[in-house]
């Protein structure tokens, strides 16, 4: 991996990320207030406000602004995709699924609140994500809001996130997983929601079909890129460098890109995806495209 390219020298990506994360955190805090029954809402807030880089909300807002929209049009949707992301993590961490005790350095939701509340908190976040887009989005015609709701629903259901989870679960311990199946898992588990984040932003910001489809392709590429880089880091970095257990995938005998195509080919694949992603941005105003451009580089060249 090399250092980031010269394109982003004028654009301060770090400051942009920090800035957006502050706005998003504030919006999330306001959106999910403490109500009765307190425990469920505490559980929802515990995971939702636990930090995280807020990559999905940022993608949503950046895509909205790229097509000429303003942040306020995309903020409810940006919060909604983070709610969905959080609920999928809460359910994924359950003992009957991945059985994780720690998430973002804190005990997982069911460790603190119990499995029953964790399931309900996840369900509640899922439902609230839709309620929030439907009620809190302002300055956008109803038809676009409905379109966004439909996109989000598709990306997280049995054709999206859940499909990836199911194939992941059913292929655990199976030794002869092919590249097709590996890609299916990652596209559905990771890329779909990233794609929805971008597409929702583009729709709500008033993007035309062509723009929405270009950005959809951009998001698909960086979604997959994210996973390929993750797999490479898992075999090339130490646990200390990663901040999590290195080599975990190898021990768990999970299929990874380096395992299936080798480290060098995996790196080439990552380069190709990064380029393909950026190609989609070429038709847009380059200043407005800078955040997404920088984000692709950030994903490609991150070290942990």
């Amino acid at each position, binding site marked *: 991996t090399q250092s980031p390219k010269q394109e982003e020298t004028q654009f301060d990506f770090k400051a942009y990320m920090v800035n957006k994360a502050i706005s998003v955190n504030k919006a999330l805090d306001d959106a999910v207030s403490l*109500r*009765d*029954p307190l*425990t*469920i*809402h505490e559980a*929802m807030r515990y995971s939702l406000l636990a930090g995280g880089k807020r990559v999905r909300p940022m993608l949503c807002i950046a895509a909205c602004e790229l097509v000429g929209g303003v942040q306020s049009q995309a903020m409810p949707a940006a919060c909604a995709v983070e709610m969905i992301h959080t*609920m*999928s993590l809460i*359910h994924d961490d*359950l003992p*009957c*699924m991945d059985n994780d005790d720690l998430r973002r350095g804190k005990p997982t939701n069911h460790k603190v609140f*119990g*499995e*029953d*509340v964790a*399931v*309900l*908190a*996840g*369900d*509640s976040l*899922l*439902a*609230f994500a*839709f*309620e929030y887009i*439907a*009620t809190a989005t302002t300055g956008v*015609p*109803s*038809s676009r*809001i*409905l*379109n966004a*709701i*439909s996109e*989000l*629903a*598709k990306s*997280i*259901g*049995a*054709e999206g*996130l*859940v*499909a990836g*989870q*199911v*194939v992941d*679960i*059913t292929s655990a311990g199976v030794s002869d997983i092919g590249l097709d199946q590996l890609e299916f898992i990652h596209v559905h588990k990771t890329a779909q929601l990233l794609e929805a984040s971008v597409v929702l932003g583009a729709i709500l910001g008033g993007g035309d079909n062509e723009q929405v489809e270009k950005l959809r392709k951009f998001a698909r590429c960086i979604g997959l890129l994210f996973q390929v880089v993750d797999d490479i880091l898992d075999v090339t970095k130490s646990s200390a460098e990663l901040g999590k257990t290195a080599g975990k995938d190898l021990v768990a005998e999970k299929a990874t890109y380096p395992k299936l195509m080798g480290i060098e080919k995996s790196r080439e694949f990552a380069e190709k995806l990064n380029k393909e992603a950026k190609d989609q941005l070429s038709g847009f105003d380059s200043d407005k495209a800078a955040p997404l451009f920088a984000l692709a580089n950030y994903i490609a060249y991150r070290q942990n």
Partner: protein
Amino acid sequence: LPLVSTQFDLRTYWTTLRAEINQKLDEAIPVKYPQQIYEAMRYSVLAKGAKRAPPVMCVAACELFGGNRLAAFPTACALEMVHAASLIHDDLPYMDDDPSRRGQPSNHTVFGVDMAILAGDALFPLGFRHIVSATPPNLVPEPQLLRVITEIARAVGSTGMAAGQFLDLEGGPNAVEFVQQKKYGEMGECSAVCGGFLGGAGDDDIQRLRRYGRAVGVLYQVVDDILEEKMKGEERKEEEEEEEKKKGKSYVRKYGVEKAMEVAEDLRAKAKGELDGFEKYGEGVFPLYSFVDYAADRGFSVGD
């Protein structure tokens, strides 16, 4: 409305609608890859004994205001999808721990706890998506569809059915009333109100439908509890005690059959009282009216 019982045949109305709803639900969840998840979803949504009370109430409320039932079918199906999702999660081992539902093994008993969680997670968004993609665009204004989605999301969420389930597990003072309202009243209210939105009802009528639907939903459950209690024989004492530990949350268990019957009569009167305000709509109110008597008397059987 003395003519109701002689001129309106709820049984035929219901049976006809039920067959249509069943067929539409069947079409709305085609089996794709990965098959297991679609089978798990279909297993609960298409369960044989399902009466389809929420969809029928939704369609009847829509027709009351002159709405086309074709406008109501997708939402009617969505109500069954989200309802099934809630029930699947409610039955889980660390929730109500129910091995069976509607006379057949519950979802997790057949597909495993992990698939059951995912089936629920997939059914919620499918419901929302189905409303957007299947409602004929010329029949319902877009802002009304947003209201329908909001209503359903709120009903299943952290202040609705999820709250009811939480209080059901938690217990505490006044838990019975709260659980009845939230777990059962909420679905009735939501079904009636969604039908009203789709049929173009005004604000006052929506409020009326709200109170009507809630009363019928709770009435239905109270009568279920009474019937269940009456069916129990002495020989089942032991089994019952075991069950008591898990669910002490019915009116009957707390107040006894007689008091529960009084509550049922009050609810019947309350629901019918709300309908008096709909007399100006003529015969359209008959289905909703006879629905109340059905909930109270169970004059015939629906389903297989």
